[in-house]
């Protein structure tokens, strides 16, 4: 990026709220069911039906609004956004127009150069999702699946405060992390529960005036958002350098070719003819509801990070990993509460546990690991009851069978041998069998001792206390 221009980015994010039922009827919102099996007269928009709003969706939206430090509208009103499309059964979408549920919020992101910066949230409003079209190009037929129709969405619109593709990436990361902490959406971009459109324009540095804005759609991964913005930033810069005008338009991200392509060159001004939905009576947000939602708010990622650093004396880097997801942070704290060695627990979680999580689709919850079990493994290892190697084996076995770690140690005979008498004969045997190494050690090669310790470990199937074995070997050899 040159020094002449400044990039201005605003993001529109649609979050699918993970209510069990749809925004205005009782149909299931589960993903992946057979087409048109999760529909009723209401979400099909059949003649005569009426919408009834989902209180849960509303509370979920309130949670996000509070987490984003938004002002909350006192009276909730729904509007109709009128447009024709076969996946929209009523040919209007119930949304919120001039009175969004939440407005004027912010979220803090980390920028490599500038540190913490606040990105403003213009508004967040509730709306219903549309259905899906499936095109059979061979047969020239189109099919409509209305399972998704009426699924509650929260549209979160940022201020044009984002200055680079990196920041856009960080914004999405922070937003996703926060929303996942609130447990109101799984934020799965592949399944469409988090969707993002980006508005990007360039302007001369120091200018207050915005340049022509390009909207990029079809961004279905975090990477796509960043790559598309990088591409678009360059494309617009080149255009400006060549004294060309950047045309205001909607472009699609082509992931195969790694380019944005114009969707419509001529931007037709859509007139959505918004007006208040007369089927949904406006209502006041009850103070009790606000209070209940406030009570249910979890500690949010930033606060939690700060607390972890202070309370557990961990490094920022460690905390970053531990608090990346709420269940992981919860798990960490549960283990520490059972065995109070924050750094040791941290090392285990960051190391072994993360390694096991990597193979799973979800996270710590999928592992089925009990905090008490991990605490007991760490404790046994720390106290020298089992070796580090054995500890890892106990964890693996525990993950497979769920058996109590102490039982595993007993059954497999993994207890570390720290008894001199028991080790004595083995140490003698190892010295006899490895004359060369013994001589090497005598000759001053420190490494040779590690080899001999390894031999003791092997003969004891890892049960020997390596420290003790080392000491005994040294004494015997140097006599």
């Amino acid at each position, binding site marked *: 990026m040159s020094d002449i221009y400044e990039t201005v980015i605003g993001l529109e994010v649609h979050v699918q709220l993970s209510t069990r039922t749809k925004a205005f009827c009782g149909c299931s919102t589960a993903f992946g069911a057979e087409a048109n099996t999760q529909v009723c*007269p209401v979400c*099909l*928009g*059949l*003649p*005569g*039906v*009426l*919408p*009834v*709003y989902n209180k849960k969706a509303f509370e979920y939206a309130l949670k996000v609004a509070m987490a984003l430090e938004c002002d909350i509208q006192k009276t909730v009103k729904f509007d*109709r956004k*009128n447009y*024709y499309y*076969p996946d929209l*059964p*009523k*040919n*209007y979408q119930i949304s919120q127009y001039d009175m969004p549920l939440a407005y004027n919020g912010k979220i803090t992101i980390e920028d490599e150069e500038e540190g913490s910066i606040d990105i403003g949230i213009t508004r967040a409003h509730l709306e219903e999702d549309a259905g899906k079209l499936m095109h059979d190009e061979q047969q020239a037929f189109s099919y*409509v699946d209305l399972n998704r129709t009426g699924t509650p969405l929260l549209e979160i619109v940022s201020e044009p405060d984002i200055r680079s593709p990196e920041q856009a990436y960080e914004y999405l990361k922070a937003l996703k992390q926060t929303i996942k902490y609130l447990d109101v959406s799984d934020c799965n971009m592949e399944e469409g529960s988090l969707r993002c459109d980006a508005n990007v324009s360039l302007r001369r540095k120091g200018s207050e005036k915005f340049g022509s804005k390009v909207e990029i759609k079809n961004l279905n991964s975090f990477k796509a958002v960043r790559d598309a913005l990088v591409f678009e930033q360059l494309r617009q810069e080149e255009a400006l350098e060549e004294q060309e005008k950047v045309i205001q338009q909607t472009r699609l991200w082509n992931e195969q070719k790694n380019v944005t392509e114009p969707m419509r060159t001529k931007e037709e001004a859509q*007139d959505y*003819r*918004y*007006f208040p939905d*007369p*089927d*949904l*009576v406006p209502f006041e947000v009850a103070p009790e509801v606000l209070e209940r939602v406030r009570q249910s708010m979890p500690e949010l990622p930033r606060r939690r990070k700060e607390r972890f650093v202070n309370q557990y004396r961990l490094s920022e880097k460690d905390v970053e990993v531990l608090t990346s997801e709420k269940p992981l942070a919860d798990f960490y704290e549960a283990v520490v509460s059972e065995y109070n060695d924050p750094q040791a627990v941290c090392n285990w979680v960051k190391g072994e546990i993360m390694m096991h999580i990597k193979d799973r689709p979800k996270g710590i919850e999928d592992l089925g690991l009990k905090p008490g079990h991990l605490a007991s493994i760490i404790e046994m290892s720390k106290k020298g009851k089992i070796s580090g190697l054995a500890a890892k084996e106990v964890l693996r076995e525990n993950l497979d069978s769920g058996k109590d770690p102490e039982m595993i140690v007993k059954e497999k005979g993994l207890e570390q041998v720290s008894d001199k008498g028991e080790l004595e004969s083995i140490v003698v045997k190892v010295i006899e069998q490895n004359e060369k190494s013994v001589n090497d050690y005598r000759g001053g090669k420190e490494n040779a001792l590690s080899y001999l310790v390894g031999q003791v470990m092997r003969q004891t199937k890892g049960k020997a206390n390596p420290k003790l074995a080392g000491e005994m070997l040294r004494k015997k050899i140097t006599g």
Partner: protein
Amino acid sequence: MQDILSSFEHYHKWLREHEEPVAETAGFLTDRIRQIEPDIHAFIRLDKERIVCRGRSLDERSQGGALWAVPVAIKDNICIKGELTTCASHILDGFRPPYNATVIEKLLAENALLFPGANMDEFAFGSSCETSFYGPTRNPWDLSRIPGGSSGGSAASVASGEVAAALGSDTGGSIRQPAAMCGVVGFKPTYGRVSRYGLIAFASSLDQIGPITRNISDCARMLEVISGYDANDSTSVDSPVPKYTESLGKQIKGMTIGLPEEYMGEGIDEDVRRSVTESVDVLKRLGAKIIDISLPHTKYAVSCYYIIAPAEASSNLARFDGVHYGYRSPKSDDLIDMYVNSRSEGFGKEAKRRILLGTYSLSSGYYDAYYLKAQKVRTKLSQDFDRAFSECDCIVTPTAPNTAFKIGERMDDPLMMYLSDVFTIPANLAGLPAVSVPCGQDRNGMPVGLQLMARPFDEEALIKVAHAFESETAYHKMFSGGCG
């Protein structure tokens, strides 16, 4: 033919005396209707087999229910599971709802005998029942005249003695105005009193389902059955439903009834004015105190209505697009064509006129000047009523400025047609309960209607006054005769 349907009570007595199964009665009633229908055309369709079948299912149940075996005509915009429901429009060709409207559930729970398919103006757009895709309904009192609209089929079916009662829907007077023109009772409950779930919407903020009957006591019975909170309708109001039948036979001595000057001025047929004036005298004689009141914003009601109602209608009717159900034009090459052709061929002239009107007034740049302004006028109108009801318990007016006109007379003059509802529209805009009761005849023998309006949720006041009036007069006993 014996007028067995003159009242529910009379009909029930007849049923008891004849000891015939409901299935038989259903067949007999359907045959009677079939004789009358060529003249009246109150029904778009009449499926004898289904009606007899419903009668048979009633026979299998224990007798009882407030509406046991009572034949009730259902306006064609109220959904009945598995039954064709078309809003008298081509665009809903073949549509059978997979669910029952809440009012239908309630009628069924009281064992009513449903007669679906009552004719109406297409999508309830009209004041004469002439815009039906299936052809107009005729007034039983004079077959050359309109029955009033849009629940013209419902009103005519009751007036001609085809059925004992009917359900209509009232957006700007569509229950009261045809009731007045057919000489029967038509009741529009308070907005939110009766669930709209299953009523194919015309204008959501104005629509309300209500009964049409031969007399006010049957009306009270019907109202008692269909009223009440419905969790499926966010606009339905959660307040207890009084026993409306207990308001029958009550004295009206001491009640204050307001007579708004704006409703008795120019443009009113002389015979209508005379009948209303005489009716006011009757109320006075019954001990009511009559006072003059003013509702100054009445003159804006029609303009205001013709902004709000089409605006909502344009959005409500967007779902009829030939994609998911109903009529789809066979002559389409692409998606836009499919929409355009299906809607062009599926909707009638008046429906298109209103869709265009509504689309225009909601468009960006016009919204503030039309829709928003109309909403403000609507508030002013409601305030007029609030003021009036601080002085009186009830307001009395003519239901319509004139009696039933000739078929075709106003078809080419939409503005004149729109004025048929000038006195009924204010109650819809303000969400008030209102009733029309027969109160006289004009020089041609056509019935005149008297409208009563009350405070929101004070349906009881209307029943009380209407019943007292009915007990003192014989207009409700007049019968169109054509079929009696």
